[in-house]
């Protein structure tokens, strides 16, 4: 295909030719083209099909507001649907396909829906698919879903990489049009740290698209000159291809930088970066968006925005047609006509809805005053227009201007409401802007060039002065205040044909009127009922016209109707960019225990516990399933000795003269009198009296304690202790620091644990039961002078110790313990065996401390001291929390030992119906006990402590299972604690 519509001039590089493909057809363009400009250059008017009616559609705008020219870009896993051809930078080898059609683009089978349009009005789903009711889910919805939507996902993983980042500046300037450039230049020369971001690849905004002059220089040349100066300044970061999509709290802005989208390959670099910009101040210079006028068949390929037609001619050297008519309700439309004739493009007519003289000379064009376009002809491209006075004019392009809307979006992201300006017939930013933001140029309603430049400079100056920054004097070049008078003219009422308001979602004037008639009169309801403005373009070209028509119908003014709320993002942000690097295994950090390497080398299966990877069990040859490994680990530990890495438990180093008093306040049980060299189990309550964490705390010295917390609550406990220290009792001398990662800690459990440790701990330390009894602790030396900490505590119920060495020796320590334990057949055990043994012993864990249970429920009510001031003890005594018939933690065993139990089963009295009214409690933890040879469970049951020996039904309706269980003590193994103290 040849570039029949390429004309002279523009900013494309004609010395180089780029070959690209559209629907498989090879076409040519130049560097500097967008896909849209290149398609137009090649005479490709028909670009896609519309959402609902599958109407033929072409390029409508020249920017990110594009509702029609959506294509699928690239192929395979890189395929990206719904890409606006108007923002895609042309590159060698680009391949795009049109979307939303069955069969070829030219002969879309689904176009039949257009003929059915009388039945497909707003809300047709709800009206049409009511009967028969059963059809909705099975038939209507699947059919509607399969025909809805525009592009298609590749259904493959996104192979691209994305990144995120953080930027900081004194002044963020959003938009590099005339006012943005002027603001950035002023701030940059003043020495402020400036970020200037623009969604386009060529900064300059409308200066690139128009023929306006500054100080006798072409606008585009001035823009290039300013950009060249800014690029060289170390205090300026110029970010092209970057959309600032949202204004958030505290001067923070979200921005999406498209780094490699303009290249054929990303070269292993992130395709896009999602930036968080921390600005002290911001100037929003986002410009304005031209809006269409609704008239019959105003959606045909070749009907375009007048400003866009001008941009294609001036910036890209492409004319969208050879016989162009202009339809306008304002002075600006005339400039398109003039620019076109200046470039030698034939303008056949200028149709002005206003009855006023020509705004400028347009040689060769008919000037039709006080008229409008009523209808168009041409299925795959416009062929002629019919005016309200009956004239039919053959054209191949119709440039429409319905006035300009300031891009106020970012001013509304913190609930600001725009204000109506009658002289502009448009909304401008309202009173409550996001803090730190000022608006300049067209975005603020300064629609003429001279005014925009002056305001860009003034806003930058004001923003810097507010930061006590000296402001450099920048010369304001002479520029034009071009005529911008506009009239309120939204749709052609004489037109009987369907007139589109929202082209992307196929919403017509009729739909808006219908919504009003059916009572959807609030603008928010109009939007949701008709889907006006809900497409990927978020109604940039359609919203105002829609609400103007609604206002007309409802007999209200436009400001009375108001706008819907603008929310981020300004333009679509890919999910990949929002995810950034956080994909797959990089979704969150991994924490490894000090003996991770040893575990990996010794057959461990790992389980994620929060961020930690812990060994769950260690498989041995011949074991057929996890139960084999776990049962063996439990048996070997109980018979001799087992070793488990318990580093993940939180460790908090507590020092200070008042540390004991502090602990006495944060634990429910007493700690004030814990002797040096002793460990105590402690239970922590929330202020409301609910138990939230437990652990042991060891007194290493008079003013030095080491607290352990559960793995899951390590951070929460630390945070609450810090709060207590700093806010509740700032007069106590207490200091906290986490040492969780600093010590590799191992549980050494089982009857031979002492013998094993005696081989590792240096001989001068007496580990006999008399010298180092149950609940003793102390600093020791191991392996010939290596500092370590030893605690005689037991989670398994066996004689057990925990030994800690500096974490960097942890992997080696595991080796040493295993080597020293070889003669005792020592076994490494994982979290499953740990869990089995704690259930056998009746120790509460996360399942029991679930944020709903009290010490009373846990059978530890008497631990909560009422003789001291401590967190939670007062509220734990509320009558409802100390009821006699409250649920109590008990043990459960199946009456038939062969039957397994299920965690989550509910207890029902033997003769009662299994429903919630008869609920007696629930099973929290279950395990197969290799020591007892049957399943066991822990659980809460009403008045449990008085029901030992009773038989209950344990019911799981989810599993369809029921087991008879006997209520027993929670301490299945060694209830008297003889093993612990051996």
């Amino acid at each position: 295909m040849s570039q029949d519509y390429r004309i002279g001039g523009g900013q494309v590089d004609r010395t180089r030719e780029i070959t690209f493909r559209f629907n498989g057809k090879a076409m040519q363009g130049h560097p500097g083209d967008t896909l849209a400009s290149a398609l137009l250059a090649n005479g490709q008017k028909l670009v896609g099909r519309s959402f609902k009616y599958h109407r033929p559609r072409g390029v409508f705008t020249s920017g990110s507001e594009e509702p029609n020219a959506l294509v699928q870009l690239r192929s395979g896993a890189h395929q990206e649907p719904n890409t606006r051809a108007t923002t895609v930078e042309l590159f060698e080898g680009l391949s795009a396909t049109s979307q939303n059609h069955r069969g070829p683009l030219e002969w879309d089978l689904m176009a039949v829906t257009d003929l059915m349009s009388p039945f497909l009005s707003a809300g047709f789903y709800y009206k049409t698919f009511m009967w028969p009711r059963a059809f909705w889910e099975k038939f209507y919805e699947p059919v509607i879903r399969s025909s809805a939507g525009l592009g298609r996902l590749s259904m493959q993983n996104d192979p691209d990489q994305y990144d995120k980042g953080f930027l900081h500046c004194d002044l963020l300037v959003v938009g590099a049009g005339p006012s943005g450039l002027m603001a950035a230049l002023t701030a940059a020369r003043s020495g402020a740290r400036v970020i200037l971001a623009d969604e386009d690849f060529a900064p300059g905004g409308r200066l690139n698209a128009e023929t306006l002059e500054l100080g006798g220089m072409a606008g585009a040349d001035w823009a290039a000159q300013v950009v060249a100066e800014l690029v060289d300044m170390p205090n300026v970061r110029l970010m092209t291809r970057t959309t600032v999509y949202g204004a958030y709290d505290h001067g923070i802005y979200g921005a999406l930088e498209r780094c490699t989208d303009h290249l054929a390959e990303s070269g292993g670099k992130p395709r896009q970066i999602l930036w968080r910009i921390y600005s002290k101040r911001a100037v929003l210079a986002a410009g304005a968006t031209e809006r269409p006028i609704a008239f019959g068949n105003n959606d045909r390929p070749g009907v375009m925005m007048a400003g866009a037609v001008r941009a294609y001619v001036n910036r890209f050297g492409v004319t969208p047609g050879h016989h162009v008519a202009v339809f306008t309700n304002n002075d600006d439309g005339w400039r398109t006509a003039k620019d076109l004739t200046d470039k030698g493009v034939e303008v056949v007519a200028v149709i002005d809805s206003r009855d006023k003289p020509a705004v400028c000379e347009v040689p060769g064009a008919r000037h039709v005053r006080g008229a409008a376009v009523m209808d168009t002809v041409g299925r795959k491209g416009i062929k002629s227009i019919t005016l309200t006075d009956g004239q039919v004019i053959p054209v191949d392009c119709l440039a429409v201007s319905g006035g300009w809307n300031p891009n106020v979006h970012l001013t509304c992201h913190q609930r600001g409401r725009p204000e109506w300006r009658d002289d502009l017939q448009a909304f401008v930013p309202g009173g409550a802007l996001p803090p730190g933001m000022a608006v300049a140029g067209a975005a603020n309603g300064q629609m003429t060039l001279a005014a925009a430049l002056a305001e860009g400079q003034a806003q930058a100056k004001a923003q810097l002065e507010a930061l006590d920054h000296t402001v450099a004097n920048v010369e304001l070049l002479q520029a034009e205040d071009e005529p911008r008078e506009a009239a309120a003219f939204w749709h052609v009422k004489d037109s009987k044909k369907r007139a589109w308001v929202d082209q992307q979602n196929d919403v017509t004037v009729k739909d808006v009127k219908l919504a009003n008639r059916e009572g959807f009169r609030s603008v928010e309801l109009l939007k949701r009922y008709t889907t006006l403005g809900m497409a990927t373009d978020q109604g940039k070209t359609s919203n105002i016209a829609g609400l103007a028509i609604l206002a007309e119908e409802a007999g209200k003014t436009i400001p009375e109707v108001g706008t819907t709320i603008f929310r981020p993002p300004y333009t679509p942000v890919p999910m990949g960019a929002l995810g950034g690097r956080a994909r797959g295994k990089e979704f969150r950090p991994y924490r490894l225990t000090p003996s991770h390497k040893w575990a990996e080398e010794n057959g461990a299966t790992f389980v994620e516990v929060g961020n930690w990877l812990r060994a769950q069990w260690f498989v041995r040859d011949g074991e057929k399933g996890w139960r084999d490994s776990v049962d063996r680990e439990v048996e070997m530990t109980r018979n001799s000795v087992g070793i488990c890495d318990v580093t993940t438990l939180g460790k908090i180093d507590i020092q200070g003269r008042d540390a004991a008093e502090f602990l006495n306040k944060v634990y429910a049980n007493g700690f004030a009198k814990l002797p040096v060299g002793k460990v105590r189990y402690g239970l922590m309550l929330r202020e409301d009296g609910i138990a939230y964490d437990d652990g042991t705390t060891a007194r290493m010295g008079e003013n030095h304690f080491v607290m352990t917390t559960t793995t899951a609550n390590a951070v929460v406990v630390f945070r609450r202790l810090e709060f207590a220290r700093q806010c509740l009792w700032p007069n106590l001398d207490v200091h906290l620091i986490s040492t969780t990662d600093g010590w590799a800690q191992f549980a050494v459990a089982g009857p031979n644990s002492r013998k094993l440790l005696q081989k590792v701990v240096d001989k001068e330390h007496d580990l006999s039961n008399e010298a180092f009894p149950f609940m003793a602790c102390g600093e020791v030396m191991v392996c010939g002078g290596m500092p370590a900490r030893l605690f005689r505590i037991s989670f398994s119920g066996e004689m057990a110790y925990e030994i800690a060495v500096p974490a960097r020796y942890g992997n080696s320590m595991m080796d040493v313990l295993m080597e020293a334990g070889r003669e005792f057949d020592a076994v490494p055990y994982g979290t499953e065996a740990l869990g089995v043994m704690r259930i056998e012993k009746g120790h509460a864990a996360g399942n029991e401390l679930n944020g709903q249970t009290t010490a009373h429920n846990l059978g530890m009510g008497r631990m909560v001291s009422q003789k001291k001031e401590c967190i939670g003890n007062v509220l734990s005594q509320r009558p409802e929390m100390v009821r006699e018939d409250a649920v109590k933690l008990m043990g459960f065993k199946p009456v038939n030992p062969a039957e397994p139990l299920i965690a989550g089963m509910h207890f029902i009295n033997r003769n009662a119906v299994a429903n919630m009214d008869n609920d007696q409690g629930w099973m929290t933890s279950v395990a197969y006990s290799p020591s007892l040879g049957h399943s066991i469970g822990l659980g809460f049951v009403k008045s449990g402590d008085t029901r030992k020996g009773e038989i209950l039904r344990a019911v799981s309706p989810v599993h369809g299972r029921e087991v008879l269980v006997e209520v027993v003590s929670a301490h299945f193994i060694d209830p008297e604690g003889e093993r612990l103290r051996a």
Partner: protein
Amino acid sequence: MPEFSLISAPPLAGYDETLGGIRLRAPEGLAIVSIALPLGGEAAAEKAVKSAYGAALPEMGQSVLAGDARLVRLGVDQAFVIFDHTEPNAEGVVAGKLKDKAYTTDQTDVWVGLEISGAGCREALERICPLDLHPDAFAVNQAARTVMEHLGVLIIRTGEAAYLLLSASSSAGTFQHALHQSMKNVS
């Protein structure tokens, strides 16, 4: 001779990588000891620090290089001493120097250190560090706690284009990967 001996294997030991002019390495033998100033005994503790290290405890968010040790002030009553020391008795060394005027805790193995340096290192950090590291905003010797890729980090500017980053040792692999990826993405 004891029957068994322990071998030190800190995470990232020996790691040293240069990508596009940015160097990332795990410094060896870095000892870290925390100092807590007793309530009411702050002046005595600060005096002890000064006489032990020849430098006053810096203001919060600042660090000072005192001989071979770097003192980093993290809070009203908390500071770190970071120094080269391989033996597992760093806390005792600092406690001895301070003559028990402050509480000390060994933090050596709690953290993993990574030093990032080179002309483009600020650009790499921009991808994961929310703080403003512009030379005017974060001067040499300044220190701050922040979060990078969900990981808590203590960042200290140790030179014109050099930063020491400390993060939890258990997630050293994730931390190193995050920095490596940032270097790769900007180089």
